[in-house]
């Protein structure tokens, strides 16, 4: 019987704890921030809590799609600020899940780099504040490569046989071939996409590996000599080995933006404004982007960013390569992309 008593006591204790956990939220001095884990350094979150007296309730999702379905279920409520990828924001705005921003409440609004504004997901900047951009650069080890890589077309060079590693992202890699053909990432011309697929098959002998996670390690270890990888992977590689060369491909650059928006029925929109304003502050933003290693969308922060990371989180001076975002395309076009991607993978033996 003694055991039963212990069990009962444990149950009561656990129930009390859940009760307490339930009480701690929902008050008006909490900011419910909904984004991936690790988007802000701890010092920035605690600095915000100290500066405003608000408590940050940091909740996470694994993908933009999950965020969207949660927000739909909550009818645009529950969360005060969501930071997510561009293409998901387009859908969220179309479904009326975002509220218009009152930029007069954001004293630091002018700090934003205008290159990252007015994009397809929010053409008039009504809803979003950008926070970090992924820029599709090339990275290579000059000591292991005989040629001077200037753009995507150099990846087809015969001297790079079995030396190239790419991420497993169909739209990015197919887009690379489209760029070599001088076309848009978002072309809906099926014949052009097919031609790009043919071009990719020619690239196959040069491909050493296709993978998404930790591909920068393969570059650092010498498994591959050239990489097409995600922005923060480029940053991590460059941090470990400063001799690596980052290239802005001359054919044009694809990029994606993460941005914050306030859900339509946010319980505490004021807190969201305060937080957005806080992270738009030049010095705070500098800390954020040093940590995040995505491209800095807050122009005013650039002078404050540490020299060791500045080279790969800010666009070079006088930057004028044509930039294009990867956008949502129709399902039939999406299908063609999937098919030529599968053929490419098969040709690479992956």
């Amino acid at each position, binding site marked *: 019987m003694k055991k039963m008593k212990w069990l009962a006591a*444990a*149950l009561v204790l*656990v*129930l009390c*704890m*859940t009760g307490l*956990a*339930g009480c*701690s*939220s*929902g008050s008006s001095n909490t900011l*419910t921030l*909904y984004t*991936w*884990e*690790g*988007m802000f350094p*701890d010092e920035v979150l605690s600095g915000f809590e100290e500066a405003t007296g608000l408590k940050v*309730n*940091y*909740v*996470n*999702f*694994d993908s933009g799609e*999950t965020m969207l*379905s*949660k927000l739909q*279920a*909550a009818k645009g409520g*529950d*969360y005060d600020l969501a930071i997510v990828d561009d293409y998901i924001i387009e859908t969220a705005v179309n479904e009326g899940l975002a509220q218009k921003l009152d930029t007069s409440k954001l004293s630091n609004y002018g700090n934003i780099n205008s290159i990252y504004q007015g994009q397809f997901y929010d053409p008039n900047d009504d809803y979003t504040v950008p926070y970090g951009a992924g820029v599709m650069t090339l990275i290579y080890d000059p000591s292991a490569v005989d040629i001077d890589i200037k753009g995507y077309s150099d990846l087809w060079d015969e001297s790079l046989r079995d030396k190239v590693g790419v991420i497993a992202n169909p739209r990015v890699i197919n887009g690379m071939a489209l760029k070599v053909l001088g076309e848009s990432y978002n072309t809906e011309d099926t014949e052009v996409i097919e031609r790009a697929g043919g071009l990719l098959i020619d690239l196959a002998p040069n491909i050493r590996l296709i993978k998404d*996670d*930790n591909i920068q*390690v393969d570059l*650092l270890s010498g498994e591959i000599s050239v990489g097409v990888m995600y922005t*923060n*992977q480029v940053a*991590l590689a460059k*941090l*470990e080995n400063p001799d690596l060369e980052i290239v802005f491909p001359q054919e044009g650059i694809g990029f994606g933006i993460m941005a914050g928006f306030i859900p339509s029925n946010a319980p505490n929109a004021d807190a969201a404004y305060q937080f957005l304003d806080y992270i738009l502050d030049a010095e705070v933003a500098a800390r954020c982007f040093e940590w*995040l290693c995505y491209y800095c969308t807050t122009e005013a922060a650039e002078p404050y960013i540490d020299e060791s990371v500045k080279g790969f989180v800010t666009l070079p001076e006088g930057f004028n390569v044509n930039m294009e975002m990867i956008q949502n395309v129709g399902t039939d076009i999406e299908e063609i992309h999937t098919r030529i991607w599968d053929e490419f993978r098969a040709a690479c033996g992956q």
Partner: protein
Amino acid sequence: MKNRTHFPHIYLGVIMVFMYLPILFVMIYSFNGGRSAVLWTGFSLDWYRELFRDSSIFDALINSVVLATLSSLCAAVIGTLGAVGLSRVSLRSKGVVEYLSTLPIMIPEIILGMIFLVFFSLLGLPFGMTTLLIAHTAFCIPYVLMQVKARLVGLDKSYVEAAKDLGAGELRAFVDITFPLIRPAIVSGMLLSFAMSLDDVIISVFVTGSNVNTLPIKIYTQIKTGVTPKTNALCTLMFLATLFLGLLSMFIGRSRKGSNKQPDATTNLNINEETGG
């Protein structure tokens, strides 16, 4: 009685290499000075300092443990009732019921997660600990149910019949006879459930609310920004805690066995007969 085959050694070796070597690497990299969880750049304790400064990680850990405890307890009650009930009926639909109750294991988690999301929002339940608990209990029940069912199959019906013969009611017979006999199965089912609930991320991410974060969600959603050795540090601490608890329970079990040998279920029966009458 010397062991003539090397099979146990090979088995042990394989287990060590495939299960514990990776854990060892995780532990080593928690002391990494750099930000990478794969490239060694020097020894430091920075990530442990970071970890202890981050209260949200410990909040998430507490949430996870609370949730796993509660859902395994709920699953134990419901699963045991279900298994005992199923063992008593002899309907033609029994097979169907059994199949239906183990279905949550077969359905892909992502689909289960979506179903729960839609269902709870239709009911208008506020997302949070309650919805997490319901969802976790639901997918934990089959683990208890299957364990207890298997145990009941091997159980001699005559124990219960003897108890009833001696005047015990249905409830009394269950509490004194059936329950002690199936207890090991319940406990192992609960432990399985606990583990399943503790590391679930796919379902949790769909059914959690704006105020509850569990540890697996927190770790899994780092994919966008890269996993830092802070997570390794946390894993190391959790592994050591588990190891400590495991050793502790082994130690207690052994010392208890040494001092007074625990009577097994059948001798228990005799004692109950003597004292209970």
